[in-house]
């Protein structure tokens, strides 16, 4: 495990009180760091919506996102069990426990995943969601990695819930709803960009994220501007339609 990245990640996870804090970016960071640190193939994150559902708020890949969605749609799977019990759920070999999740297990196999570890996002009796780790090879998860994964989930949960003294439930709910709507905006933007450039959804998402990074903007802001037509991502168009961009040239003009 990369110790430096791990300590950086803990610092990032406690950095929720800054101006312009964005729950979606925060959750994406958590899933991406989980993949980098915990020897897993993909990670996904579910949060509880006061409407009564769990919602997929972040995933490190489209396959993981679809698999999380699959569980919600079929009301079955380790991540749901984890959320409902507030306890970690591990399936080291999904094929061996297929009877427990007759629909989820084959769907996970089709997506290329053979093992899953679900970790609750929980503070005392309040369970706000679940962090789910997927691996492409069967076998037990390394106990150290699981402990570190739970620590990441715990710190993220505490960071979200510690918000601003008495108003904390109001603030968290405001931020969560904003995040859920941002998630919708991002999906709308993915669809628009995928259609415009003939990409799949994963490619569209990566381009949006890259573009946000290059412009130093929040992903949700950029996605909204793109959907509303106030940002055409023209530089991105141009860089992609160029037949063979030379390797030394930056992919797009900065600051345009």
């Amino acid at each position: 495990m990369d110790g430096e990245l791990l300590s950086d990640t803990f610092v990032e996870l406690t950095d929720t009180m800054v101006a312009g804090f964005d729950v979606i970016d925060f959750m994406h960071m958590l899933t991406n760091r989980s993949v980098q640190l915990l020897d897993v193939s993909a990670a996904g994150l579910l949060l509880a919506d006061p409407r009564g559902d769990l919602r997929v708020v972040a995933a490190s890949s489209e396959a993981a996102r679809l698999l999380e969605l699959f569980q919600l749609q079929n009301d079955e799977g380790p991540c749901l069990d984890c959320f409902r019990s507030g306890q970690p759920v591990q399936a080291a070999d999904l094929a061996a426990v297929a009877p427990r999740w007759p629909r989820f297990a084959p769907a996970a196999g089709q997506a290329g995943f053979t093992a899953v570890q679900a970790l609750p996002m929980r503070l005392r009796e309040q369970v706000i969601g679940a962090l789910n780790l997927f691996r492409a090879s069967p076998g037990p998860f390394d106990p150290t990695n699981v402990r570190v994964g739970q620590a990441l989930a715990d710190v993220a949960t505490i960071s979200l819930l510690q918000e601003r003294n008495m108003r904390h439930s109001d603030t968290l709910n405001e931020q969560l709803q904003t995040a859920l709507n941002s998630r919708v905006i991002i999906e709308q933007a993915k669809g628009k960009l995928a259609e415009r450039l003939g990409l799949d959804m994963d490619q569209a998402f990566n381009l949006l994220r890259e573009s946000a990074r290059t412009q130093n903007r929040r992903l949700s802001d950029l996605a909204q501007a793109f959907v509303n037509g106030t940002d055409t991502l023209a530089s991105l168009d141009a860089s992609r339609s160029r037949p063979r961009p030379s390797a030394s040239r930056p992919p797009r003009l900065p600051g345009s």
Partner: protein
Amino acid sequence: MTDGRSARIWSLIAAQAARHGGRVSAADACEAAVAAVDVTGAWLIAANGEQAGHLMRVTDQASELLAELQLTLGEGPGPDAAASGGPVLASDLDEMEAVRRWPAFAPAARQAGAAAIFAFPLQLGAIRTGVMSLYRVRSGPLSAFQLGDALIFADTATLLLLDAQDQTAGGAAGSAGGPAGSAGAGPGGQPADLTRHRAEIDQATGMLTEQLGVGIAEAFIRLRAHAYAHDRRLSDLARDIVARRLRLLPDPDPREDGQA
């Protein structure tokens, strides 16, 4: 289950509409929310895109005053909700934080009789159709259950406002006045499956802005109209579009372009 919950809320809204004998509109969602969420009053501002909205419904005099105050002073939970894209839950207007945030509006709202205001943007991603605000004479946060209900009222009001836009344009999805008989039926007779199946619906909506050369609200209206006209579930139709098995044509009467 959200399906049962959406159906319960839809029937409350439909009952509200039946009381005045008209077709179901977002104003009915605003009215019905007052009793269901246990607040004192509510108001709803309908807005089309970035334009300033119009006050569509107030449920009592204080609501009207509160709406006017926000408009006059240019500050308050409503404008903040519209700008931030998330609800603004001001559960105690006497709190320092509320007073700091709305130095003119917070004391004026207290005078008007409101101790707590909860403002919900009427939105679907980048689609913005207005703001629904609830006020209460007593301070204190909404319970998790009340908040969930308020969010579903706001979701439903959003769909009803989009339906109304579609009717103005002479589209096909506007059957909002229809019976709410089937379980989970929402506005336009669509199953209320937006929350759980929504990523594909959102992606398909984004794709349609390009295929049809329209804005995001119009794209969503056309997606629903197509599902309604072809008697298909919105999520199934969306999946076909995302998988590029189906394209819609830039034509006011959308027809399938055959199999891709």
